[in-house]
C-alpha cells in the first residue's frame, strides 16, 4: 500500500485546543508520555484510506497574534489545513474567518480546509452556534465538524474526512512530494527523529 505523506497545518487562536486535538488523534489520549516525535508541535499519524495509507504530518502553529506572520511558512505545501476555533469563544471564530481568508489568498491552491469547533463538551457556555459555523463552512466548501479533544469526540472523524477529501494519487499535485514518487519515495518513518 502506498504511503502518502500529507502535511496538515493547524491554525487557530491560542488556547482553542489545536494541540489537544492532535494529541488526541495521534496518541488517542491526553498527555501520553511516549511520543514518537520530539514534541507535540509536530506529530505524525498514519491512517489507512482506501487503498492508500495517509501519513499525516501535522504542523502545529502558534496562535498568538505576534506569530501570525509566520503562518505562511507553516501552511505552505500543506495538503490540508485544520482551522480550530473554540465554540465557547466568539473571538476565536472571528480569527478563524481571518485564517480562511488568508488561506484562500495565499495558501496552496487545492488545500483542503477543515473547520473544527473544539470544546464540544462545553456546550453550555457555547458562544458560536453550530448553525452559523456550519453555514460559514458550507459557504467556503470546507469540512465542518465539532469536536471534543477532551472526550475524544469526532477527532478521528475529522481526520478521516480530510483523508476522504484528499484527491487520489493519480490526479493529485497537492503534495509536492507526490510528483517525485516515480523516482523516489521518501521513507515512511521520519528518520531524522532523534
Amino acid at each position, binding site marked *: 500500500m502506498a504511503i502518502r*505523506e500529507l*502535511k496538515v497545518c*493547524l491554525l487557530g487562536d*491560542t*488556547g482553542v485546543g*489545536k*494541540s*489537544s486535538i*492532535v*494529541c488526541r488523534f495521534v496518541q488517542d489520549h*491526553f*498527555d*501520553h508520555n511516549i*511520543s514518537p*516525535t*520530539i*514534541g*507535540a*508541535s*509536530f506529530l*505524525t499519524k498514519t491512517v489507512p484510506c482506501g487503498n492508500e495509507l495517509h501519513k499525516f*504530518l501535522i*504542523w*502545529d*502553529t*502558534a*496562535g*498568538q*497574534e*505576534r*506569530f*501570525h*506572520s*509566520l503562518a*505562511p*511558512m*507553516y501552511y*505552505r*505545501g500543506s495538503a490540508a489545513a485544520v482551522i480550530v476555533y473554540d465554540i465557547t469563544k466568539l473571538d476565536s471564530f472571528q480569527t478563524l474567518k481571518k485564517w480562511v481568508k488568508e488561506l484562500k*489568498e495565499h495558501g496552496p491552491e487545492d488545500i483542503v480546509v477543515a473547520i473544527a469547533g473544539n470544546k464540544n463538551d462545553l456546550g453550555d457556555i457555547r458562544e458560536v452556534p453550530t448553525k452559523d459555523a456550519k453555514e460559514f463552512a458550507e459557504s467556503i466548501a470546507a469540512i465542518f465538524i465539532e469536536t471534543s479533544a477532551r472526550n475524544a469526540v469526532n477527532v478521528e472523524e475529522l481526520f478521516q474526512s480530510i483523508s476522504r477529501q484528499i484527491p487520489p494519487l493519480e490526479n493529485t*499535485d497537492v*503534495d*509536492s*512530494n507526490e*510528483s*517525485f514518487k516515480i*523516482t*523516489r*519515495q*521518501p*521513507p515512511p518513518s*521520519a*528518520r*531524522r*527523529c*532523534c
Partner: protein
Amino acid sequence: MEGSNGSSSKWAMERRMEGLVNKHMADMALETLQQRLSAVSQEMNHLSAEISRREDSKRVQDFPRRTEPHFLVGSFPESSNEEPVDEKKLMANTSSSSAETASQRKIISLLLEIKEEQQRQWAVLKDLQVMIQGHMCEEDVETLEIDLPLQTMEQLDETERYLENDGAQKRMVSHLSRMGGATVDDAVRRLMQAVLSFSVGSELNWVGRGQKRSFRNTRLQGVLFRALKKTPVGKEATHHQFADVVKKWLRFAPFRQGGSGRRQHYKPPVEFMCPNYNTDTEGWSCVLGPDIAESPGSSTQPNRQNASMAADASVKSCQMDRSGSFFKLINSFSTEISELKQEMVQTAREPDTKLLQGLAGECSSDCEGLPSDREPVHLLLEGSGISFADLFRLVAFCCISRDVLPFTLKLPEAISAAKTTTDLEEVAKLGIEFWHSKLCQTETSSVLDGSAVQQRVKQAERSTSLGDNSTPIPHTRTPSQLECSQSNGALCFINPLFLQTHLSERASTKTATSSASGENCALSHSSSSSTQGRSHVRPESVLRRAISTDYTRNKGFNREESLSRSPPPRPPPPRTISRRSAIIIKQKSMPETGVSWIKMPQEKTSLLGRLSTSFSSISPSSSPPKKISSPIPMPSRRGKRAPSIPDVDGQLCHLALEDQIIEQAVSQSLAKQALRNAATDSRSPAEEGSPVGQERLSDISISTSSSDSLDYSNSFTLPAAASPSRADSSLEEEEEEEDFGVGVESDQELSMEPPFKPKKRHNAGTFVLQRALKGHLRKVSGVFNSLMTPEKRAVKRIVEQSQNKGTYFGSLVQDYMSYMQENCSCHESGFELLQTVRQFMTQMKSYLLQSSELNPPIESLIPEDQIDQVLEKAMHKCILKPLKPVVEAALYSFQVRTGVWQQLKENLSLAKAKQPQEMGVDGAMPPDPVAIEKIRHKFHNMSKLYSPEKKVSLLLRVCKLIYTIMEDNSGRMYGADDFLPMLTYVLAQCDMPELDTEIQYMMELLDPSLLHGEGGYYLTSAYGAMSLIKNFQEEQAARVLSSETRNTLHQWHRRRTAQRSIPSVDDFQNYLRVALQEPDSGCTAKTLQVRPYATTEEVCQLCAEKFKVQDPDKHALFLLTEESTQQLAPDTHPQKIKAELHSRPQILPFYFVYRRIQNLNLTAPSDELNGNSVPV
C-alpha cells in the same frame, strides 16, 4: 591484443593523416587553386594557339568559316556578346573580308568567353582564399606590433595595453587564428605557445592564485579564445574546454622550460629541431641543426614556406651522409651521461659510461646535424613545447611520453633481448650497420605482421641461444632480480611491456632492460621498411621510472602488486600528431600474456613486503600469503583509482595523460635526489650475491600502464585478493585526498609547487618509514572498508567520482566547485547563493540517477527507496563539504554588507534582556542558564557540520531539550502555542547571531523532501523565531514582520513551489509582486505569476483580473522607487526592469504598484509601501 594493436596503429595513422590535412589545408587548397588557375591559363594558351593555328590554316586553305564544336560546348550566351564584339572587330579589321570577319568574330567572341570564364574563376579563387584564411587574408602578419611569443611579463603588460584597442585585438585574433592544430587541444596549445614563452607561462595561472598572475583576466585570453573559435577545429570549442587546456598548459609551463621544473639554470636559447620524423629512411632520422630550428612561436605559423622547408629538410636529411655528425652526437651523449651520472651516483664507474655510450650510440646512430659545441642547449622535438636540457633527457622523455611522438621509444629488440655481454658486443660491433643487420630486421618483420608473438618467441630463442655459452650480462637483470636486489639504486627505465613479453616466455632468465648506470632508455628502433611513410607503435611502451627508490624498495609488496597487473589495452593514440617530427619506431606487437615472471621467491621480497604479506594473511579476507606474490589480474578500474587521473581507458584522457607524463618527466630530476639517498643505503643480501661487475642495481617500480605510472602513489595498490575490488579504491582515497585531492580542485596548487612534492623526498629515510606504516594502516582500513555498508560505499564511490575530472559528473562538480569558490560573492543574496547550490545538488542527483556513469550502478548497491538519501548524502559530501567554508564566508559577508548582521546583533541583545513572558512564554518553565549554556554548546557543534541533515538533527536535539525542560516542569504536553515562544526566548538567550546564517544554510540546502517532516517543522520554527528576533524592535513597535522577512518568506515559498518540478532559475523569476493602491483602502499586494517577457500591458490585465478592478482602463502599472514614481509604458517588460534593478550594485527598494492613473498625488508613507505589506 594483436587485433587491437593493428587497429590502433591504423587509427593512429588516420589521425595523423587527418592532422596533416588539417594543418596544411590552407596550403593545399591554395595549391589546388593555383593549379586550377594555371590549368586555365594553359587552356587559354592552348586556345589562342588553336585560334592562331586556325586562322593560319584559314588563310592558307581559305576554308569557309566553320564552327568548332569544342568551343561551342559552353552554354554562354553568345548573342549578348555578339554586338560589342562585332563593333570591336569591325573597328579592328575593317578591311577584312566578310567570311574572314565572321570567323574572326567567332574566335574573338570565344576569346572573350574564355576571359570571362577566367575572371569568374579568379573570383571563385578569391572567395575560396577568403574562406580558407578567414576574412583577414589581406591583413599581414606584419601588422602585428607585438613580438610573439612574449618573453617577459613586461611584454605581457604591453600586450594587454595594446589589446585595449579593438582593431589590435582583431588583428591579433586573425593572426593567431592561423596557428592551426589538429584538435582543439592541440590548437589551444599551439596558441599558447605562439603567444607565451614558457617563462611567462610559468608566471601565470588561470585564476591568479598564489604569487602568480591571473591569465583569465587578461585580454589576451579573450583574444586567444576568439582565435581558437576561428580555427577550423575550434569552431565548436567551448570556453571551458579552452580554459582546461590553458590551465594545463600554464600549470606545466614551468616544467617545459627546461625539462626540470622550476629549476632555472639559464641556458642559451638555442633550440634545435630534433628528430624530424621521416618516412623512408632506414631507422632514425634525426634532423638537428640550427638551420631548421624553430622557436615554438614560429613553428605554429603554418605557412607554406615553413612546411615545405621542413619537408625539404627531412628529404635532404635522408640523402645526406650522416657519419660525420654521428660521432659528435655520441660525444655529447656521453658527456651528458657522465654529467648525469655524477649527479646521480656518488661513485661513478667507468664501465657504466662505456656501456651507455654504446647504448647511446646504438640509439642515435642515425642522428645527424649534431650541435658540435657542447655548450648547453635546449633541445626540443619539432612541434613540441617541451624542451630539454640535453639529448639524453629528451630521449628518456620520449621513452615514456607520447607528447610529441605518437609512440614512446623502445629499445631495439636485439639489444633488449640480449642476455649476455657477447650479445651486446655483437650488436655494438655492428655499429651503424646494426640497423640493416639481420638482428634488427628480424624484429622488424615481426612488427609488421600481426603474428608478433611467434616472431618474438623465435627472436627470444635465438637471442637466448646466442648467449647460451656466455656469462650473463651482469647489468641486465630480470625484474625479479631487480626486485629483490636493492642496490645503491640508480635511475632505471623499464618498459614494462617489454619485460612482460620476454618474461612471459622465460620467466627467470629474461633480461630486463635496465642496464649500465641505470640510465637505461628503452629505445626501440626500426629499420623501417614501412612503405606507408610512417610506422606506428602502440603507445603501450610506457616507461616507468622509479621515482622514489627507497620507497619502492621498502614496499616490495606494492611493486609486486603493480607488476601483477596486466596492462589494460590502450586506446589508440587519441591525438593526431601532425607535422611533428617523430622517430620511426617499428611496431612491436606485445602479446598481452600473463605475468608469470612475477612469481618470485617469497624470501626475496623485502622485509616490509613480507610483513605486509603476513599482514594480509591475517586479514579476514581470506587471501593466502602466496597470493600476494602471484600474479593477480586486477580489473582495470583506473578511472576510480585516482581522482586526479582521468579515466585512461577513454581517449578523453589523453591530455591529462600527457601532462602527467610531463610531470613524471619533471620529477626525473627530483628523483635524482632520491637516488642520492638511495646510493647511501646498504645493499640487500640477495643482491650482494649476484655477480656485480660494474653496474649499480636499480630499484624499479614498475607499472604496466602509463596512467598508473603517473604518480608514484598509484603504484601502491592493495592486493586485489586482500580487498575486493572496491575496497582498494577506497583505501586510496585518503592518500589521494591528501596528495592529490586538492590538486584536482584547483590548479593553483599544482602551479605553485611541482606536482611531485619535493619535500617528500628530502628525507627519504623517515619518509619511507611513514610510508610503510601508512601502507599497513591502509591495509587495516581496507579490512574495515570491506565491511562498509553499501550505503557508505556508494557514497564513497560517488565522492570519488566527483573528484575525477575525467568523468562528466566529476568535471561538472569540479567546475562548479571552482566556479563557486571564485564567484561566491557574485550572488545577489545569501538566499540566492544557497538556492543555486541546492539546485545544483538536485540536478546532480538526478543526473546520477539517469546517467550510467556510476559503475556499478547505484541500483545494484542500494535498495531503490534509499537511493535518494544516499545520493543526497553523497552530494553533501562532495559538494557541501568543500564549499561550506566558502558559502559561510559569503553568507556572513552578505549579512555584514546589508547591515543585517548589525541589526541582528542589536536586536539579539535587546531580546536577550527580555523576560520569558515578554517573549510570549506563558506557563511553561524557561530553561535556566545552565541549560542555555548546554544549548549554546549544541548550537556551536551544529555550526561545525557541513551536512544540513546533520545540522538539523542537532537542532532537533536542542528542541527536544527545550521540550524536556518545559515538560519536566509541568507534566503536560506543549504544542506550538507554547513551544514557539519558548524557542524564541531560548534563541534570544543564546545570543548567537551566527545562528541566523546557520538556519538559512539548513533551510535552503536541506533535501526538499525532508522539509515536510519533523526537521522541516523545527527548522521552520527556528527560522520564524529568528526572524522575530531579527525584527524585534520593529515587532515591538508594530507587531508585524518587516517587509524583508515577508519577502524572504515568500521567496522561500517560491522555492518550495519550484521544487515541484525540476527547479530552474526561471522559476524564481517568474513572479512579480504587485501592490494595488487604492486611495481608500491602502495597499494590497499580490504575487503574480509573470513570465519574463510579459509586457506591462499583459501585467496590467492580470492585475485588473486579480485585484478585481472595475475600471482597468484608468489603472496603470507604476514603478516606485524611493525618489520617483514612473508609469511603465505598455510595451515594457516588468520582469526585465526588475532584473535590471536587481542587478544594480546597490539595490534600492522598488515596488510595482498598480493604481489609478489620475491619482498623481501619491503620498503614501514609505512604510506602507515598503514591501507591499498587506495590512493585517
